[in-house]
């Protein structure tokens, strides 16, 4: 661990979220406990409907747990103003939504007083040149949109990046470009990244730690290389053999 990686930044303690859909009660997240350390990358893997996205939404406080608690810097999420908390723990959606207008206006949306230099700096951080600033968002490819979405989050100077399958809609080349970009940003700024992915290969490339969720529960966690090659639980072994639906 590097010096920035020895502190716990987010901790989930016995977190559950119960929802009612079509009259049925379901736990999308079930008794989830885990401590996330600063400056690390965490991959959350698991079959569809395992509660991965639901868990990210709890960290960004778009939803609240029905049981348990989540701590950020040792304080409960509820003790922060939601608007400020979401700037510190920023969520990037699977399908990036850019507000109508230009790339520049999207970055200004997050920080109305940001200068042209800041826009240039943040666009370059995600591998886009400054000319993109005046480009209409409707002209961008999906990969470019995702980069703008990342730049838009970075302008808020978050400590934690929550990424919900950020490369799901991208081709393999664009996908790996985003992965490299994320890895360099995490290293450079000691960011903590919690990324949901459906792809074990992607988790391997990202490294760090991996958490396997099944039916809302955290069933196994560990260093990515170890978990994905030598899972200890039956669920982990089934997941690797692609037997978990």
């Amino acid at each position: 661990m590097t010096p920035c990686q020895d502190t716990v930044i987010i901790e989930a303690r016995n977190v559950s979220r119960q929802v009612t859909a079509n009259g049925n009660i379901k736990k999308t997240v079930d008794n989830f406990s885990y401590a996330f350390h600063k400056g690390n990358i965490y991959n959350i893997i698991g079959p569809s409907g395992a509660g991965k996205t639901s868990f990210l939404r709890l960290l960004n406080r778009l939803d609240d747990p029905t049981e348990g608690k989540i701590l950020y810097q040792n304080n409960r999420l509820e003790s922060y103003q939601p608007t400020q908390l979401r700037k510190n723990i920023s969520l990037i959606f699977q399908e990036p939504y850019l507000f109508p207008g230009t790339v520049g206006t999207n970055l200004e949306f997050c920080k109305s007083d940001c200068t042209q230099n800041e826009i240039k700096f943040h666009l370059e951080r995600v591998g886009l040149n400054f000319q993109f600033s005046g480009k209409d968002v409707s002209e961008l490819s999906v990969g470019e949109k995702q980069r703008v979405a990342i730049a838009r989050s970075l302008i808020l100077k978050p400590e934690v990046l929550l990424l919900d399958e950020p490369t799901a809609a991208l081709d393999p080349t664009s996908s790996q470009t985003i992965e490299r970009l994320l890895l360099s940003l995490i290293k450079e700024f000691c960011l903590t990244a919690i990324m949901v992915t459906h792809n074990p290969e992607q988790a391997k490339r990202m490294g760090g730690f991996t958490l396997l969720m099944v039916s809302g529960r955290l069933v196994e966690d560990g260093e990515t290389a170890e978990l994905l090659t030598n899972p200890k639980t039956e669920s982990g072994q089934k997941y690797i053999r692609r037997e978990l639906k």
Partner: protein
Amino acid sequence: MIETGYVQVLTAFFLVALAFVLSRIKSIPVEKEMAFGSVRTFIQLIAVGYALEFIFNSESFYLVLLSVLIMLLVASYTAGERARMFKGGFIISFISLSVGSLVTLGLMLALRIISPEARYIIPLTGMIISNSMNAVSITFDRIGSDLKSNRLEVETALSLGKSWRQASSRFYRDAIRAGMISILNFMKTAGIVALPGAMTGMILAGVSPLKAVLIQIIVAYMLLSSVTISSLAAGEIVIRKYFNDVEQFTG
């Protein structure tokens, strides 16, 4: 001069028969509603005519107040039906319509533009409440449907640290504007595409066109004021229903 009596009204009923036959030929399934609506219009308006005659003659303040209250309650119920997705649609409609119509009416009375007589207050209040009711219904409908179909946009804004008000401001503005479109179109085309109803009624009743026009202008301004205030009030209260105290979208 138009002759107005029951005989003329019953004779005009052949127009209903014409519409009925045409829709039957074209298999448009509205015969029942048409028949029911025609009879209902007749009975309702005759009953209202007698009631107004009675109220105007009595000059009772309480009867005027009761009439306004009944109009507000019925309009609130109708607009509230458009707000089934959340609780309290009737109350929100009632507050919005009361604020819009009473502020408008109160100002007109205070400025002595209209005199406090039943024959002015009741028809004018009816017009402004009816127009405001439509605007409030559209505002309810639009806010709900726009927020739900643009969930990703709303939650993206929230996830970037925006408040619920910032995340929903575009939808609030669009809904209010949609609610006001009818009155804005009316004001754009008044007298050109069609003579407004109130003015037509006055001219048919023998009032000079110039006087009818002046009254119609006042009515149009009252409608604009009431529709704007009611839509803004309804939008302001309703949009809050889609978010909780911790800036989460609950729609």
